[in-house]
Every structure is written in structure tokens, then in C-alpha cells.
């Protein structure tokens, strides 16, 4: 790094000179084609002892009945014909391993963390449990009970109520609108869970990400183990949006705050407007200095936080604003959000604000690419959409190129208040 010369006397009124980010190197992992057709992506060169393996299965909440998918994921490592849940957990404890299972709409990601010398050993235990899961009735009964108790607590949270209603309305008429109801828990069906496991896990391996400085031999052993899964996954057909815009309020007696979700269908990274819209979204609500934060938190004090986001899935993307505001300032908040949409539609963003947001986004991208774990996540985010790392070079070029006119046109096209779903609870 070249050294910047500091002036001898500090003038605190003058900001240090900024230097732009000229280049970010994006590194692809090594790719192995498993015999079953799934791909294994491997990243090494960590310079530390950590490692993890991440299995992606076509077993998300929308790939079947959402309760079945959720319970199946919850019971994956909870007993085989040979071992009880407790025995499995003890075996994983003995090698210091951790795991988590996370369910999204299309995919379930099962991640195992361990020190690199223990990873294969941990995975062997894990693999046997996942592959040979028997879903013991007793474990199922316990999980159903625990989940329904947690569900009752969730139902008292305004954020949970607003989010659920928002999702249901946004995805109206599609599989994504299906949600677990409290009364569903009593109909949990072990046979359906077993069938789901068979179809979506044993036959549904989509890809595997491995990170850590393991040996080539270890890598071969992983491949042998992973090959016992089949990979008969098919992509879902694109679906049609049919949400009805408009406002709905869910009253909750005694609430001090209302949770708010405002949004609309949008697109994911595969759409030509994605990069430019990312800039617009950041200006509106996706960083601490955003217009929504400056207005609704830092000027009015209506909320602890407010943000806008682009949420992506393999098939689609949507736009959403989320916040929790005092019950008595809910309507005022709506008016201010609407004003911010209109400002973006009618006034050009100033050069200063645009430059700031561009630099901010570049810095955040540099951070997102920092280190093997972060880089592998960046890769996974585009790979899943059928894109490659060249997307980020394009993203940088488009961010640099976008101007105020383009942003105004995007605001006019995508940020119309009367096209928004407006949900509040509390």
C-alpha cells in the first residue's frame, strides 16, 4: 500500500482525501462434477483452522406442504435405525462440530461447521444421520409440540403478523402463499415427512459448497459420500404475480407499535434493471444515511429503524420496506414514505448524494468479497441464478454509469404508491 503523506498540521475542517476503489478481484471456487450430476464447489487457502460444508437440497417450504417441509428439516439429524438423536448429538459434540438447517422457499441448506481436521469425521456422522433419518415418532411428537408453542409466541409479535400477511398477499394464488397455521400442527404426518425426505433430500441434492484447507484425499472421501444422494432436481416454472395492491391493517389490541411492510413484485439479478435499481433502493432506504432513515428516524423520530430491500429467489424478486413505528405515528409514516417516492419521481438526485451512494456501494461490495467465506457466498448468490462472477464486474460498471435521469425513470416505473401492498399490524 502506498503511503499517504499527512499534512504537518491537522485542520479538522478538511476531510481526508478519498480514494476510489478501482478493482475488486472475484475468485471462483474449484468446481467438481459429482457422479450424481450435482456440483461440488471447493474453496481453500484459508490460513486458519476453520472449515464448513454446506449441502443445498431442493427441499424448501414451497416444494411441498410447508409444515411437512419444516418438520422434515427440523428432524433431519434426530435419529436413525442405529442411533438416537442424543447419541448423534454426542458424537458430533465429541468432534466439536456444529450444524444448522435453514429453510427458504425453494431450498433447504444444511451446514456443518468444524475445525478442518475434524470436518470429514463430523460429516461421516452427519451424513449417516441425514441419509438414514427415520423420523422417530417420539421425536416428531416433541418437535410438533415445541414448534406449536413457539408459534403461539410468534403470533403475539406485530412484526410476525405483518410479515405473514404481506407474504400471503404478495404471493396470492401461488405455492409461495401457503403458510403454516396453528391448527396444522395437530395434523403432522410422519409418512408424508418420510416421503418428503425420500424425494427432496435423498433424491434432491442440488449442490455442495465446501470451504477449508482439507487434503485431496479428504476431498475424494467427501465426493464418495455425496454421491449416494441423487440429484433429480427440476426448476420450477416461472410463476405469475397476482397481488392486489392496497392497504390492510391488522388490529392488535394494546400494541404500542405497528409493524409495517410495504412492497411490490420486482425482479432478481437476472433483470437488466437490477443494478440501477439497487442504487435507487440504497438511496431510498438501504443504508444508514438513506432518505427513509434520514426522514422518518433522524428527522421525525417515529421509529428505531426503517429499511427497504430487494429480496431474491431463483425465480423472482420483490421489493419491501419494513419498519416498526409508534401506533400513533403510523399514518404519518405512510405519508412520509409516499412523499419520498414522489421526491424520487419528480426531483433528480443530486450529484453529491449519487456519488456518496456509489462510493458506499463499492465499499460494501469490497467488504462482501473480503475473505474466503464471504467470497464463496458472493459466488453462491450468482451461481444459483445461472450467472457467474462476471455479474459483479457488470454490477460495478453499471453502478459507475448510472445517472440521476435513469434513477428518476426507475422511480417512476417501480415506486408508485398505488401499486404497493401496504400491510400494517398492531
Amino acid at each position, binding site marked *: 500500500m502506498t503511503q499517504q503523506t499527512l499534512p504537518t498540521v491537522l485542520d479538522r475542517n478538511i476531510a481526508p482525501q478519498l480514494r476510489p476503489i478501482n478493482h475488486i478481484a472475484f475468485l471462483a471456487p474449484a468446481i467438481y462434477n459429482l457422479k450424481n450430476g450435482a456440483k461440488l464447489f471447493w474453496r481453500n487457502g484459508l490460513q486458519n483452522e476453520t472449515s464448513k460444508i454446506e449441502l443445498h437440497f431442493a427441499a424448501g417450504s414451497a416444494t411441498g406442504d410447508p409444515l411437512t417441509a419444516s418438520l422434515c428439516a427440523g428432524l433431519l439429524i434426530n435419529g436413525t435405525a442405529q442411533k438416537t438423536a442424543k447419541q448423534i448429538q454426542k458424537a458430533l459434540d465429541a468432534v466439536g462440530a456444529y450444524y444448522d438447517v435453514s429453510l427458504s422457499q425453494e431450498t433447504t441448506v444444511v451446514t456443518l*461447521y468444524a475445525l478442518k481436521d475434524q470436518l470429514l469425521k463430523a460429516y461421516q456422522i452427519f451424513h449417516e444421520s441425514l441419509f438414514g433419518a427415520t423420523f422417530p415418532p417420539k421425536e416428531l411428537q416433541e418437535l410438533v409440540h415445541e414448534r406449536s*408453542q413457539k408459534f403461539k409466541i410468534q403470533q403475539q409479535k406485530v412484526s410476525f403478523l405483518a410479515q405473514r400477511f404481506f407474504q400471503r398477499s404478495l404471493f396470492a394464488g401461488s405455492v409461495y402463499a401457503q403458510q403454516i397455521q396453528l391448527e396444522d400442527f395437530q395434523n403432522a404426518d410422519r409418512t408424508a415427512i418420510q416421503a418428503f425426505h425420500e424425494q427432496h433430500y435423498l433424491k434432491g441434492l442440488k449442490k455442495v459448497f465446501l470451504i477449508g484447507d482439507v487434503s485431496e484425499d479428504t476431498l475424494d472421501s467427501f465426493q464418495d459420500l455425496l454421491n449416494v444422494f441423487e440429484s433429480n432436481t427440476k426448476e420450477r416454472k416461472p410463476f405469475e404475480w397476482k397481488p392486489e395492491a392496497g392497504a390492510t391493517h391488522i388490529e392488535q389490541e394494546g400494541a404500542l407499535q405497528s409493524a409495517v411492510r410495504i412492497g411490490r413484485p420486482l425482479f432478481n439479478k437476472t433483470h437488466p434493471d437490477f443494478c440501477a435499481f439497487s442504487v435507487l433502493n440504497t438511496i431510498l432506504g438501504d443504508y444508514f444515511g438513506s432518505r427513509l432513515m434520514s426522514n422518518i428516524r433522524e428527522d421525525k423520530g417515529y421509529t428505531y429503524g426503517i429499511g427497504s430491500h430487494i429480496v431474491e429467489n431463483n425465480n423472482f424478486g420483490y421489493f419491501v420496506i419494513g419498519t416498526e413505528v409508534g401506533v400513533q405515528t403510523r399514518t404519518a409514516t405512510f405519508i412520509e414514505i409516499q412523499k419520498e417516492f414522489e421526491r424520487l419521481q419528480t426531483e433528480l438526485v443530486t450529484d453529491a448524494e449519487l456519488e456518496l451512494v456509489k*462510493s458506499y456501494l463499492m465499499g460494501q461490495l469490497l*467488504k462482501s468479497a473480503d475473505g474466503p467465506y464471504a467470497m464463496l457466498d458472493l459466488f453462491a448468490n450468482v451461481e444459483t441464478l445461472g450467472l457467474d462472477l462476471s455479474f459483479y464486474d457488470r454490477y460495478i460498471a453499471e453502478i459507475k454509469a448510472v445517472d440521476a435521469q435513469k434513477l428518476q425513470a426507475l422511480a417512476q416505473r417501480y415506486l408508485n404508491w398505488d401499486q404497493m401492498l401496504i400491510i400494517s399490524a398492531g
Partner: protein
Amino acid sequence: MIHFERFTLDNGLRVLFHKEPATPMAVVNLVYDVGARDENPAQTGFAHLFEHLMFGGSVHIPDFDAPLQAAGGQSNAFTSNDITNYYDVLPAHNLDTALWLESDRMLSLAFTPKSLEVQRQVVIEEFKQRYLNQPYGDAWLQLRPLAYQKHPYRWATIGKNIKHIADATMDDVRAFFQKHYHPGNAVLCIVGNFELADIQQKVQHYFGDIPAQTKIARQLPQEPTQKRFRQKVIVRKVPADSFYYAFQMGKRLDNDYYLADLLSDHIGNEKTGLLFTELQRKKRLVSEITAYITGSIDNGLFVITGKINPNRTLMELDDALWPLLEKYKAKKMSKPALQQLILKLQTAKAFQDQGLLSRAMNLSFFELLGDAALINQESARFSSIQTTDLQTYAQQLFDKNRCALLQIQAQLP
């Protein structure tokens, strides 16, 4: 092993530098030795409110965030009962921007009556969002004054009640700054691919002229050893009864901390822990149960908490828990079980140490505790623990006379 360099400016600012050649980013972490425990009992929530005001502009810079964002960086902060920690993460080549911003707000704040008014309101909304508008959200607001009667840990970081925040004046806030925000009361840690000489020069350049101020020795009333069991029952509109058994434990640097950390994992783990296997699975009294420690700098709490199953009662749980703890005290943990616990902790630590920010925060925290090098002794402190130590400690810890119990009872419809 986390390597670091250390130097102190003439004005008393302690500085740590941790070189990480593999990153294009830099972390600037600045911890101030002030937390909610340093507040006046009649003006609680100030350390945290103050943290919000630190983003409201400083003497030469009207807006803290914009210059940092323009440099490609971002910033945040948190306040605990012990400390207030600010951090900036930005591209390494713009390190100066973070040092310029942090040094200016250490020098002097310039917030306006408007920013105080707005941040008071923001904090009140935070109070509602986190503590009042959530089921069980106020549990710690209730538990703290039950478990602590003398020590200022008896109030939460957010404050005893909203009124203390609503009543904060410009003068109060200015006085708080003058007392706690000065170089001798802070630790600065920089992480990134830099050279030490460069860091020394830059830190001297930006922070060197901030006037020194005498650090006032902290004199907090320490919590006496509890003599008798305490219990409080509150009724709330919640879906299930819940309980918080809080046992008195030692300070962050005491042996207690390491013993309690292992014990809480041992009895509290899901699937294999004693609480889960006996009370959740075997006796079916609870739908969830766990154990954890607060890990505070002064005497902390070891907490057993969970939720009661429908048709079971808080009393049934209580009747089952005490004999279970007695049984646990009577039995020594096996050596392999202890080794597993330690291996799991070390694995978790290896993952935690991956993050630049986490390294910067931990180094700063240990320096504030007396010596950043303590960070590299943590592992050995865990490894040196013997099974007999754990048993002896469990016998001392699980003493009903040193327990405060908060029960939240579901309101009948």
C-alpha cells in the same frame, strides 16, 4: 493466537494494532470505558442515549455518517451495562476518514437541541420495540432489580423506565460527555494491512492533540453475597408461563467465569444437556429450557430459563429443578465430557476469530479489562479446568439462597 502491537499517546489514549495482511478492509474500533453501570440511578439509560447522540455531529463535522459512507464504509455502536463500543469498517485506503471522524467526536460533540429531541424519541421507540411490545420483552427489566439490590446492574442498558430518557436535558448530556469521553477513558484498535509506523503516525496526527483528562476511578457499590432466596411473580398477557432462575456468579476475569461458561453449556445444551433431557423430555414440564451466563465485568448471573408446557405449572417445574440441581452437584463430570465441552468452545472461538470486527472488539475489550494479551490466554484458562473444579463450583453456584427467581405467569383469558 492473535498478534498485536500496543502504544499509548501522551494524552492517555491506549492504541492496539492488529495486522491482517489478507484483507482490503480496515476496522477502527473505539471502546469507551463507560456503560449503564456508570449512570446516576436517577438518570438511567444515559450511556445508551448518549451513544445515539454520538452520531449527531461533532465540533468540526456536522454529520458523522456521510463522510464515512462516501469513503465506502459504515459504522455502528452498542452500549452494554459495562462499555460503549463504536466501530467503523471501511476500505483500508480510506482509513484516515475513520480516524478523522472518531477523533473529532472524541474531541467534542456539537449536537443540537433538535438532535437530542429526535434521539430521545428514537430511543423511546427502541424501548417499545425491544422491551415493551414483545412477549416476555420486559423480563430483564424485572429480573435485574430482583437479582441486584446494590450494584448498578440493577437497571438495564435501555434504562429503568422511559421517563428517565424523556427527561434528559442538554446539560445532563454535556456533563456525561465531559466526564466519560476523553482519551484516557478509551481504547482504540485498528485492524488491517498496515505498517505499525504508519498507524503510529496517523493516530498521533488525529488523536494526539485531544487534551488529556484525569480518569476518575470508578467506585461502584458491589453486590453483596445474597443471603436469602428471592422470588417475584408477574402476570402478563403471554402464551405460556416462563421462569428465570438467576444465580450469583463472579466477575469476567475470575475463574468463576470460565467454570460457569462450561457449566452452562453442560447443563443447558439442547438434546444432550441435563435440563433438556430431564425436564423437557423425561418429565415433559417445559417446551424449552436453557442456561447461560451474562459474563459481565463485575459479578454476573448464571441464568436458567425456559417456558412451561400447557397444563403444567411453574410450581411443578420448581419442585423438579431443585432436586435435579442437587443430584448434579453430587456427581462429577466425566473427563471425556469435559474435553468435548472444551473442544466445542474452541471450535466456536476459531469461527468467531475469523471476523476482523470480532477480533478488533475482543482485543479492545481485554485491553479495557487491563491487558489485550488476555485474549490469548482464554483457551489455556478453559483447558486448565479439571472435573473436580467444576463439581466444586457447581456446589457453590447452585445455592438456593443465592438465587433470584422471576416467574412470568400467563394472564388467564
